[in-house]
């Protein structure tokens, strides 16, 4: 058990050293949510707490999904993947290491943005819900990004494009810009299928805004999504690994 934890940490450290400063990570993880938010908030009269919820949800979503899609294609292209597969680690350990690096990136940037929000006067009222949300959402979206990187491509841009096809529509149906409670009935049903909706709801709960889904259900939903994403990601990566050699 301890040996496996050490291996997961070793892989995460390697990923952090190599991938945090890669172009696609910086663009999709930092610049994109920032400009997306600016485009949304510019010249509008938005309540600071509502704005904080939007920016937090986008930040944790984009940052946690920024590193994951880069790793597998990059390792395939730079021909380090076979070396990794030759070592005594199975696919679950490799993906948990990758997810950990991705999660830490997501948490660090989101916390930095939260601190910045507090400086401009938006206060997180329920610290416990906020912390719990940032951590489980970062883990969930990290595994989602690993799931998206399972096709055996060796070009990070291709995987980034694939993940953008999923990520952008999700942003618009997950209550990030319009609260779920104010959505039309059909859109509300679609929203409830998105894990990002529960993240947004939990951020709303943490600043005491009105919520549509109770916090404990949102936490349970994100946990279930995490387990499903992790299991499917491991299966798909195991299947595609020989094609990466």
């Amino acid at each position, binding site marked *: 058990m301890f040996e496996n934890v050490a291996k997961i940490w*070793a*892989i995460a450290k390697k990923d952090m050293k190599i991938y945090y400063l890669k172009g696609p990570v910086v663009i999709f993880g930092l610049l994109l949510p920032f400009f997306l938010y600016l485009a949304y908030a510019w010249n509008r009269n938005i309540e600071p707490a509502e704005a904080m919820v939007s920016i937090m949800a986008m930040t944790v979503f984009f940052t946690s999904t920024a590193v994951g899609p880069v790793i597998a294609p990059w390792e395939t292209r730079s021909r380090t993947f*076979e070396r990794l597969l030759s*070592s005594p680690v199975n696919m679950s350990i490799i993906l948990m290491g990758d997810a950990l690096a991705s999660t830490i990136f997501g948490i660090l940037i989101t916390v930095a943005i939260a601190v910045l929000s507090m400086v401009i006067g938006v206060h997180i009222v329920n610290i416990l819900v906020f912390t719990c949300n940032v951590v489980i959402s970062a883990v969930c979206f990290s595994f989602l990004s690993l799931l998206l990187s399972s096709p055996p491509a060796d070009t990070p841009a291709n995987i980034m494009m694939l993940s953008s096809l999923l990520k952008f529509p999700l942003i618009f149906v997950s209550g990030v810009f319009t609260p779920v409670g104010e959505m039309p009935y059909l859109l509300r049903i679609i929203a409830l299928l998105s894990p990002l909706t529960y993240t947004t709801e939990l951020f709303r709960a943490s600043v005491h805004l009105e919520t549509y889904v109770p916090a404990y259900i949102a936490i349970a939903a994100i946990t279930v999504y995490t387990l499903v994403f992790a299991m499917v990601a491991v299966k798909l990566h195991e299947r595609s690994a020989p094609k990466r050699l």
Partner: protein
Amino acid sequence: MNSKNFYYPYFLYARDVASYSVAWALSRPGAVYVVDVIVAEGLTKRFDGLTAVDNVSFHVHEGEIFGFLGPNGAGKTTTVRMLTGILPPDAGRAFVLGFDVVKKPLEVKRRIGVVPEAANVYLDLTVWENVTFMAELYGVPRGVRERRARELLDEMGLLKYRDAKARRLSKGMRQRLLICMALVHEPPLLFLDEPTSGLDPQSARRIRSMLRELNKEEGVTIFLTTHNMWEAEELCHRIAIINRGRLVAVSNPRELKDMFTRLRTVEVEFNRAVDERSILEALGCEVDVSGNRCRIRARDVNDVICGIVDYAKSHGLEILSLNVIEPSLEDIFLEIVEGKADV
């Protein structure tokens, strides 16, 4: 390794390390036993209907350097990948250090070192980070990890580059770094897939001498795939030749040469130029004439030498030099892969 003392008492079908040890302990006292660290039986792998490796069986003895030769696309890398637990075979089975590579791939991986053919080091990590990262994956304790990394980098002449990013290293240095990464957990068995391919002669020589030393002084068994026949002849105690996915020969270089005596040639130098047609008629075998030198392919060396002496006498020629040349491993390899020989 003294190959003449080896005899082959049993196949090791141990399914786990316990039965592997029992098999070892039960071996009869007084006899020199060979433990097979690799047993491959009927290994087969297909890709999209194409058979890359077809029913390949062989054994690798503990302590030897085993060469696995074949032209491009013959199935060498696929075989290595199956033996190292990276690719599952479609048929057949293999045991490495007593562990089934399909049922216990992690146990196999934990105990072997691998230098894959197309692999690279992490270019964005430093030399030191590359080695210690591998040590962490193999569960080497921190204290041992640092000592071992320092020793290996020193041996490979890379210690002074320990803080440099691996992208700054030359190809030869990166290959040496890959070998350090494969040896950091002190494996008893090392797989190297084309380790000197594309390297300059100096780097290739350094790696060869390091492998020889590893085998001789530390007793590491080495499974080596190569294109380089000279390298195989220099390094390997036994070799296997694979062609179009099928194993066509497994032997030691000396025995292979004995099997191919028909490829021996006799080189003779006369005191003056000779007529090609007359010597061809006199000897009745394949002759290349170049001025006063002749190269004769000899199925029976004795007959050819006697024929040359008779020819020289009858044509008033003086023999200045006469050499019998053994076939090189390359001659034998080409003979086999071009399908002229059935082994």
